[in-house]
């Protein structure tokens, strides 16, 4: 990867083919977990007032609450009050979920436009926040899967043997931090 730089109203970076495939795959995995993955559907909030209404009243995609990644992406606003937390989530979670799915579509579409890293990755400034939130969401999901709950956990993982099956995942997790930092610095 050659890091992001500002060019007019866009942030431009260069990703290798394998990096485009990797980020696309990770974003698609989170997207799928959130009930997205409808390729070709234009991102953005629904213009159909009934859809918007149905979504607002929690008639959206059911998420797997037992999945710790879902728990991390949708934390309890009232940790000591499960009733208040559940009530709050009932009215807000689907909008959050749809926001993440829309953001992921922007990221996947920008990655797709590089044609496997043949062309530079161009992120319109209007999509910068979608990219930032999505890359961070991928890092959150990887951290949950790796069991990173403290700085010590992370340091421990960085000392693991290259033969450990998690070794590659930790390398990807750390590389995504570099990508995200580069994006933030280019703003």
């Amino acid at each position, binding site marked *: 990867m050659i890091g992001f730089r500002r060019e007019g109203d866009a942030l431009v970076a260069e990703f290798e083919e394998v990096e485009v495939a990797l980020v696309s795959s990770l974003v698609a995995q989170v997207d799928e977990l959130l009930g997205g993955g409808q390729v070709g559907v234009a991102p953005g909030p629904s213009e159909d007032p009934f859809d918007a209404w149905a979504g607002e009243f929690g008639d959206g995609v059911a998420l797997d609450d037992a999945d710790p990644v879902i728990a*991390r*992406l*949708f*934390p*309890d*606003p*009232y*940790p000591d009050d499960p009733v208040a937390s559940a009530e*709050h989530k009932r009215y*807000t979670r689907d*909008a*959050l979920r749809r*926001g*993440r799915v829309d953001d992921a579509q922007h990221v996947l579409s920008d990655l797709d436009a590089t044609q496997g890293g043949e062309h530079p990755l161009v992120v319109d400034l209007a999509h910068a*926040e979608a990219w*930032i*939130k999505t890359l*961070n*969401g991928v*890092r*959150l999901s990887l*951290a949950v899967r790796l069991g*990173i*709950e*403290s*700085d010590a*956990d*992370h340091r421990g993982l960085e000392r693991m043997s290259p033969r450990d099956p998690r070794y590659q995942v930790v390398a990807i997790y750390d590389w995504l*931090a570099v990508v*995200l*930092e580069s994006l*933030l*610095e280019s*703003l």
Partner: protein
Amino acid sequence: MTPAGGTAVAERPAEVTADLTGWNTLVWDDPINLMSYVTHVFVTYFKFSHAKATRLMMQVHTEGRSVVATGTREEMETHVNALHAYGLWATVERSE
């Protein structure tokens, strides 16, 4: 019986004020979100100066949590939603 009603009357608006603004938005430390990322969210969402955003981020990092906003319960829930959209670990609590 109090000699004059002045004291009681003066106390009531104070209670009303406390009830309307007696909620905090907290952000908790986690080992995942990058320091630059947390600062970016505070600047972008709350429109804090870079200096204030950095100070609050450092407080989260070193003290484990920081109160980033105070106001009505409804306002705090709006903030928490926005912070959750960014993947920050944010909660609402009654202010002491």
